[in-house]
């Protein structure tokens, strides 16, 4: 059975939630949602997850018609802060820009006062990162995303957390998953480290697509492949429509 790049990404996302237990796993995006569901359906069964709207649902499928939802809890937007501020959430956000310490920008590109490109706004990134573990999903890994310095720091990275001292004690940038590779921050100064490259991607490919110096070990492993059971869950239960392949097309 040929495994696609998107399916490797799904497994890498799932791995980011390993060990989280009974908390709100909040992966945002197509492949993150599928990966989170995979983690819950296999090795992390106690995770709670939203339907993207105002409910926590128990369904394995990533997309469910309203009438087919198995609702565990009414979770209007305002309830999200109860989870975030009490330390019971792990979000996986997107990033228009991210730097070597995991500082993230999704507000505006260019000078903030008069941006070249206005994006969404700060959204919940400052509060998310200061309170809980945070991961990032980047479906289009390139030097415009992985930059030397982000234009506006929305989600704070490890360097800024360290500078805060006590106030930064709950900051943990867990993982960055992209269409090329997986990164963590397991370095003495909390710099981004290449944790694994997806099958078909070389370390040089990743270096060329990254606008700053990565921490790279002597022997970078390949990202793990899905097991047969994981592939079945992804293809038949969680994402039977194949939405994952549209977000990250297989390089072939």
């Amino acid at each position, binding site marked *: 059975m040929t495994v696609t790049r998107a399916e490797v990404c799904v497994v890498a996302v799932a791995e980011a939630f390993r060990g989280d237990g009974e908390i709100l796993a909040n992966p945002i995006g197509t492949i993150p949602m599928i990966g989170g569901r995979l983690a819950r359906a296999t090795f992390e069964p106690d995770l709670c997850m939203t339907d993207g*709207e*105002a*409910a926590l649902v128990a369904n394995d499928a990533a997309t469910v018609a309203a009438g087919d939802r198995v609702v565990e809890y*009414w979770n*209007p*937007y*305002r309830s999200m*802060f109860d989870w*975030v*501020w009490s330390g019971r959430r792990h979000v996986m956000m997107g990033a228009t820009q991210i730097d070597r310490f995991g500082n993230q920008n999704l*507000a*505006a590109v260019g000078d*903030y*006062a*008069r*941006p*070249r*490109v*206005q*994006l*969404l*706004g*700060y*959204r*919940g*990134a*400052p*509060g998310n*990162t*200061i*309170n809980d573990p945070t991961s990032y999903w980047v479906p289009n890994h390139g030097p415009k995303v992985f930059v030397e310095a982000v234009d*506006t*720091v*929305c*989600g*704070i990275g490890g360097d*800024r*957390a360290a*500078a*805060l001292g*006590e*106030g*930064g004690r709950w*900051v943990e940038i867990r993982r960055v998953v992209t269409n090329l590779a997986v990164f963590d921050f397991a370095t003495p100064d909390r710099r981004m480290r290449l944790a694994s490259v997806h099958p078909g991607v070389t370390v040089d490919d990743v270096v060329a697509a990254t606008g700053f110096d990565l921490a790279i070990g002597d022997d970078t492993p390949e990202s793990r492949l899905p097991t047969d059971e994981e592939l079945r869950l992804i293809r038949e239960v969680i994402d039977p429509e194949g939405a994952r392949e549209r977000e990250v097309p297989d390089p072939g």
Partner: protein
Amino acid sequence: MTADKTMTPTDVVSRLRSGMTIAIGGWASRRKPMALVRALARSDVTDLTIVTHGGPDLGLLCAAGKVRRAVYAFVSLDTIPLEPHFRAARQSGAIEDEPYDEGLFHLALQAAAWRVPFLPSRAGLGSDLLRDNPKLATFPSPVGGEELVAVPAFELDAALCHLNRADRRGNAMFLGPDIYWDDLMLQAAPTGGRFISTERIVATADLAAEGCIHQLRVSRMMVDGVVEAPGGAHPTLCDPDYPRDEEAQRSYAASARSPEAWAAFRAEWVDVGEDDYQRKVWS
């Protein structure tokens, strides 16, 4: 005799003044009080500070030249992730910007509703939000000494929200999955400036039966004026009464492409007046 607070969109706008700070309910492109927003866009009221979980409310008012300052954590049309009229206003430097974290936005409303000068939070520490919004200050907690962010209360002059059902006195309910921040905005705004539009006005005795009691979250103590405006949230989602009108939203978004496109859209969908607007939408 009990107060009948029903009024027209024109009545609402007649109570708003240039330079005011106005909170607008709903969330992104969901249950926005668009009939009231369109009336505001047609009026001579201008120089507004708009406080919103932003969607086409903020975008339309930017395009109409009504906005001096945007106060928000995000602006989106949901199915169109970025709001093009808001983006154009930001990128041309036409408006002032006051950004928030979503949680801090919540606390600024709550502080206003509770009449305290600020509420504390950890959100914002270490981020550039403290650079880009100088109203947010840090302080050492009087308990334990930890550095925290003080979020000042919003100082609102008015609030505009759209609810699914209401009575003539201002009791109202949402029927979708989420009230968003409507109740808190109405509590944070001063008496005399709190206006709701609604899909349908029903007798008080019939109100609770329209949904379930937990959805009856707007009290007449929070409302000064009620506008019956069926379709008043169009083109935004107003479930369960109607879904988002994606085609109408796409044509609204496309009107940001050029001044000519906006002028044509404005003539056809704003200047026409609400009665003609609704006739065209539902015909």
